[in-house]
């Protein structure tokens, strides 16, 4: 897109808020090499989020926003939940539609953008919680994989319906007690990353957000593979510290503990996806 849309009319500059001026003067737009290492020095695309203090989801969002290779030409399709509280604070094109239809909306957007702008790169990224991705939206999620939609799907798994007050979700581990599961969850955590592989995703990753550099690497691979090949899926552990009884400074500790067990880093790359990744690497973009 034209970067003019970010340029401030010089005559109005003196009345513009600093964060808008920063977006023009200290941005990482138009630089596919941007990454999490830019965070302390440049203007972030997310500002003053409204999540709880110390929420790992907020960290995940900051890392993702810093890692997208093409934020000026990326649409994020969101769903209902804690993440939807953040989207009004993001300086990108975002869409919130319903709870669970995010991959369907993204499919329509991606196909029409390819039709309207056949010679341009416009990435579509879905970003939603585990309830939206795996429970209420599973049909739309998997069907978009079956149809080989060229979109990146990122699931923020906090293993609970957090925004509605802590109810069991399909991603809750068996036995955990939450509201609506007062005797503990009766069935296993849904292996969503495996479903994504079986449903035709070209690149799948499962990780916590304990390592910003790793999040950057995964997000960039997922976006590039989706851009050139087909659906990609990233499953991130972003614990709800509130619902599992941790303090605001304990999120990182919790994620590091899970790095060694059910969220051990796992990556699935098809041979054709590997080719894309190698090519992008050779261009110095990874």
């Amino acid at each position: 897109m034209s970067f003019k849309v970010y340029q401030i009319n010089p005559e109005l500059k003196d009345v513009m808020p600093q964060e808008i001026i920063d977006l023009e003067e200290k941005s990482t737009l138009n630089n596919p090499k941007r990454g999490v290492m830019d965070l302390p020095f440049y203007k972030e695309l997310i500002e003053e989020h409204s999540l709880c203090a110390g929420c790992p989801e907020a960290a995940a969002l900051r890392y993702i926003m810093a890692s997208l290779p093409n934020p000026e030409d990326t649409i994020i399709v969101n769903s209902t939940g804690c993440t939807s509280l953040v989207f009004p604070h993001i300086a990108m094109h975002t869409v919130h539609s319903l709870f669970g239809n995010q991959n369907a909306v993204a499919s329509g957007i991606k196909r029409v953008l390819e039709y309207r702008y056949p010679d341009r790169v416009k990435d579509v990224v879905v970003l939603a919680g585990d309830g939206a991705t795996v429970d209420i939206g599973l049909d739309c999620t998997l069907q978009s994989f079956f149809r080989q939609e060229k979109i990146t799907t990122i699931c923020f798994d906090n293993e609970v319906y957090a925004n509605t007050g802590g109810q069991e979700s399909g991603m809750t581990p068996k036995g955990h007690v939450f509201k609506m599961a007062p005797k503990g969850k009766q069935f296993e955590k849904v292996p969503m990353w495996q479903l994504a592989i079986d449903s035709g995703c070209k690149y799948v990753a499962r990780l916590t957000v304990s390592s910003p550099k790793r999040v950057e690497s995964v997000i960039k691979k997922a976006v590039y593979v989706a851009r050139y090949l087909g659906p990609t899926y990233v499953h991130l552990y972003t614990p709800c510290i509130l619902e599992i009884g941790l303090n605001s400074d304990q999120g990182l500790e919790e994620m590091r503990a899970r790095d060694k067990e059910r969220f051990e880093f796992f990556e699935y790359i098809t041979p054709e996806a590997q080719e894309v990744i190698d090519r992008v690497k050779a261009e110095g973009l990874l």
Partner: protein
Amino acid sequence: MSNLTTSEVKVNKSGQRIVSPDYLLFEAPREKFFMTGSEAVKEAVKRASVDASVSYPITPQSEAAHLIGELWVEGYVGVYFRGESEFGVMSEVAGCALAGARTITTTSGPGTLRAFENFPMWAGTRIPVQLVLMARGVNAPLSIQPDNLEVGFLLDTGCMIWYAENAQDLFDMILAGFVVAEKPAVHVPLITVVDGFFVSHTREAIMIPPDDIALPPYDPTKAPMPVIDLEVPPGRFLRDPFVMKSNYISYATHASWQFEVRAAIERSRPYAKHYLRGLIEEFGNPEAEIVFVAAGTAASQAKEAVRMLKDEEGIEAKVVKLKTLRPFPYEELRASVKNAKYIFVPEFNVVGWMEREITKWLYGYSNAKIIGAPRVAGGMTMPAEVIVKEVLNYIKVR
């Protein structure tokens, strides 16, 4: 028509010559064809510079959806695929429209209900999607037969609702529909209803213009909401943070947004009046004291009953056919029933949502007795004789 005399002839992506909506609808020469309602949908879409359509099978709308797929193969539609369910489809078309496409889809009965959460979302996001609804009964028990109960459910979704009587109406309404729905002052979704089977599967004579001309393409940059194509400053459909907060400003914002959607429907009146040649159509003796108010096939059958009442019983009657339900043509209706003593509302559903509408809009404006009959459902037909009998019985009792 200026487009014809100008030296610069513009074509759409399918290579059709772009003409003005007025030329296409009112001035272009028309030829007579014999076709079903589903085929009329295809012919309308072919001349509408449609960018995208998503489909899902359900009787009786499937054929119309197949035919739009054929147009995609022929290069008249840009994006087309089968979605996973009506819920998915209506979300996919929302995505298409958000990204700046002129978008159409079709559904029926249980499909409408499966998709329902999407309709107020369409309206709230101000996308001018057109849904051709081929009305059918809803479960349970299972029925695939014509019945328009679902239209009653849709009345307050924030979508415009038009009702086509026959294949000709449907053809013209689909074309006019895009033009009206996409007006910057309107820009809300349109649900164009026809009765399943009675119109979708019945072959009739219809007049259509040539297929080498088409509507001007949709220009999403004129939309009142920013198009999500990354060519304009960021637009956010979750709007501003305060909408998600529990305070009085957020309540007022949400409320005023909903009022604005309804106001947009009201602003469609002058455009709809022009392109539909009025929001109502009258048939029979204008001064008659017996009036039928109906839409769709019920209006067709009532017209036949008016003929029979006059020819066989010597009784004068008339039909007021409603072409639009949202916006509701209350001024036209009130003027039209000035002389009425008996207003019959024939309809194809058990609840009588049309009678409720008529009663509400005429309250305080008419002393006529409003009779919600005859009423059939579940696939039953409504022979003109049944309507005549209903009238005669009612008048005789009094």
